[in-house]
């Protein structure tokens, strides 16, 4: 360590030697961000030196960057000094081993959200690693996974237990220089999920994490790393809801996926964070960097997302198709209501030969909602026989909403083939009348037609998620009919 501020160094190191770690559960760092905060986070997590260096490098780079303004989103200036970069929930001294040890209040929050942990535990084939205020509080099904050789743990644990994998892969897909929020995340990430599926293993269950944001003024900077070794398969589900609150909250996660030869990763998201009130106050700022690397030949990465929440969504789950014959997919439903803004899409970078990508994006705007698809498809010189098909459809409900489509298509290989189609329209009046003539209320008719509009995307979700997504869409559109 070569800190410019020796007193802080002393403090941190002192804390470390004096068993600082036992106090973590109740510690919340005061708001503000500087190198000392970065050092303290690293120290709290008992991280090795190289990781601290990585964080500091990212932090110093972040200082030189400007917040992106090119997305079609507007929001008040974010005060990065007003955010607390680490908080831990009140809990018992040792990490809980079963649900009985979980804070009853936390369980109550889950119950209110309609997804009680008890039920989830019983859901066949679903393991749960719940992130609550940046620190893992519950992990189940770990045993079965361990038997299959699958590592499914918090990223903090992985940093301790699997240093070689972390060292090799963390930041290998999303470097800290990638963008403003990725740099910030790399500097201050607190926790997240780590998955490693060994060669030839088909992960025996769907992996699932429910993210929650709960403590006031706490930015969440999750870091997720999923590695599918040769010939393996894993399906990962991520779902989010957040309780009602007043102040804007920043969420800047980074997700990295790596698929080696013949491996397949399916990453599904249902995002339903607090979108703000009817006047557009409050709500989550969701600035996420998600990227997958199809590193090996014949590897495959699929992103499926249903985005109904957050005041602002800014995310472009992407694929780098490096391996020959690798496949990238992006299926998205984004709903914006009230004053919600979504700027989302994907990047498909075709590097290898015979690479394929499919993009299906369905945007629904209602009230004052603004929905933008922003996508980039690039066929590099060497992307022999690469193929992309893109379909972007926007549905408008009400005359004050907006739908934008910004595709960027770059082709440098003459054997590559690209097809891009986009449509924008309101709900077909004839469809609506037909349904109403059959006795359906206007609201139910709209909900049904919109669900039909999104079917291609829902079909990509694992069964239990698809049901939840449909319900969510219906709830999201309640009262939207104009």
């Amino acid at each position, binding site marked *: 360590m070569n800190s410019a501020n020796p007193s802080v160094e002393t403090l941190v190191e002192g804390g470390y030697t004096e068993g600082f770690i036992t106090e973590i559960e109740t510690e919340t760092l005061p708001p503000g961000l500087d190198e000392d905060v970065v050092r303290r986070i690293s120290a709290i997590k008992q991280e090795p030196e190289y990781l601290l260096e990585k964080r500091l490098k990212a932090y110093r780079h972040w200082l030189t960057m400007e917040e992106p303004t090119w997305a079609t989103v507007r929001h008040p200036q974010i005060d990065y000094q007003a955010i607390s970069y680490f908080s831990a929930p009140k809990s018992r001294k040792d990490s809980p081993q079963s649900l009985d040890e979980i804070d009853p209040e936390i369980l109550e929050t889950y119950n209110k959200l309609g997804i009680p942990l008890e039920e989830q535990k019983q859901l066949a084939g679903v393991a749960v690693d719940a992130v609550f205020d940046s620190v893992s509080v519950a992990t189940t099904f770990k045993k079965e996974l361990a038997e299959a050789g699958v590592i499914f743990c918090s990223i903090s644990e992985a940093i301790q237990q699997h240093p070689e994998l972390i060292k090799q892969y963390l930041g290998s897909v999303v470097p800290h220089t990638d963008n403003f929020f990725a740099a910030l995340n790399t500097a201050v990430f607190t926790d997240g999920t780590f998955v490693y599926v060994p060669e030839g293993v088909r992960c025996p269950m769907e992996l699932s994490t429910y993210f929650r944001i709960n403590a006031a003024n706490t930015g969440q900077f999750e870091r997720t790393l999923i590695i599918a070794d040769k010939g393996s398969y894993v399906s990962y589900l991520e779902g989010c809801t957040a309780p009602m609150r007043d102040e804007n909250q920043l969420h800047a996660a980074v997700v990295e996926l790596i698929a080696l030869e013949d491996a397949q990763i399916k990453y599904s998201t249902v995002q339903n964070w607090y979108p703000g009130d009817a006047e557009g106050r409050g709500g989550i700022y969701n600035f996420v960097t998600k990227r997958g690397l199809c590193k090996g030949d014949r590897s495959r990465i699929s992103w499926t997302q249903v985005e109904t929440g957050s005041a602002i969504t800014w995310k472009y789950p992407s694929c780098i198709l490096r391996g020959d014959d690798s496949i990238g997919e992006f299926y998205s439903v984004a709903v914006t209501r009230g004053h919600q803004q979504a700027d989302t899409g994907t990047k498909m970078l075709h590097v290898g030969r015979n690479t394929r990508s499919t993009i299906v994006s369905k945007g629904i705007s209602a009230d004052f909602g603004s929905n933008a698809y922003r996508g980039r498809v690039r066929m590099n010189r060497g992307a022999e026989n690469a193929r992309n098909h893109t379909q972007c459809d926007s549905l408008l409900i009400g005359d004050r909403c907006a739908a934008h489509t910004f595709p960027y298509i770059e082709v440098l290989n003459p054997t590559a083939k690209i097809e891009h189609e986009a449509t924008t329209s309101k709900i077909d009046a004839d*469809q609506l009348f037909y349904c109403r*003539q059959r006795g359906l209320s206007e609201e139910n008719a709209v909900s*049904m*037609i919109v669900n039909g*509009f999104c079917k291609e995307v829902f079909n990509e979700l694992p069964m239990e998620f698809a049901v939840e997504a449909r319900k969510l869409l219906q709830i999201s559109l309640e009262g939207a009919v104009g």
Partner: protein
Amino acid sequence: MLTVKNLHVSVAGKPILHGINLDVKAGEVHALMGPNGSGKSTLANTLAGHEDYLVTDGEVLFEGENLLAYSPEERAQKGIFLAFQYPVEIPGVNNMYFLKMAVNAIRKAQGKEELDALDFMKHIKATLTKLDMEDSLQKRDVNVGFSGGEKKRSEILQMALLEPKLGILDETDSGLDIDALRAVATGVNKLRNAERAMIIVTHYQRLLDYIEPDFVHVISNGKIIRTGNKTLALELEEKGYGWITGEEAA
């Protein structure tokens, strides 16, 4: 059951119906015939409550109630069914799911218990058997990729499932080959009963070879100009609409 008095209707500011009078009682089948553009489909859509059809004068009573005060779904729930001339495609919406939603919406409004998935399956199976139809369409999306005949058969199946008091068939025969026409007619005949009335809107007489109407009305230029029994339809077939309307044959 249905009383239409002096009905005037405009579409996009253009008057189409100029004083329609019609009285339909339970159990009756009325055929509404007329040349293209005479206003047949306008009457059908107006009864179903399409918002593009503006009633400028007159009234419509359905079982003694002012029908015009109700939304399309309320009319459907009260027992009015329109078999569309061009059934619309709804991509992504499973036909079976759609039918269950519709059946239960109507049952609920009528104070009946909603059917669960199993009972609904039984209901649909029984109805298919009754109509002598196959259920190959139920797994597909609503009308998506259906042939002309499949669409019309599906409309008749819907009518059977929703058990309306008044069925309005808007040019259900148009574009059908003879087999499809026969299948549709067979379905309709099986749905005739003493409580149910039907209005069959058609340009040609040929559907009436299979469905025998109690009354035949000829509509021209937005008015009913002649009412008779099925022999009127036969005469029309022979002599053309010009015979009645006083214009060149249609």
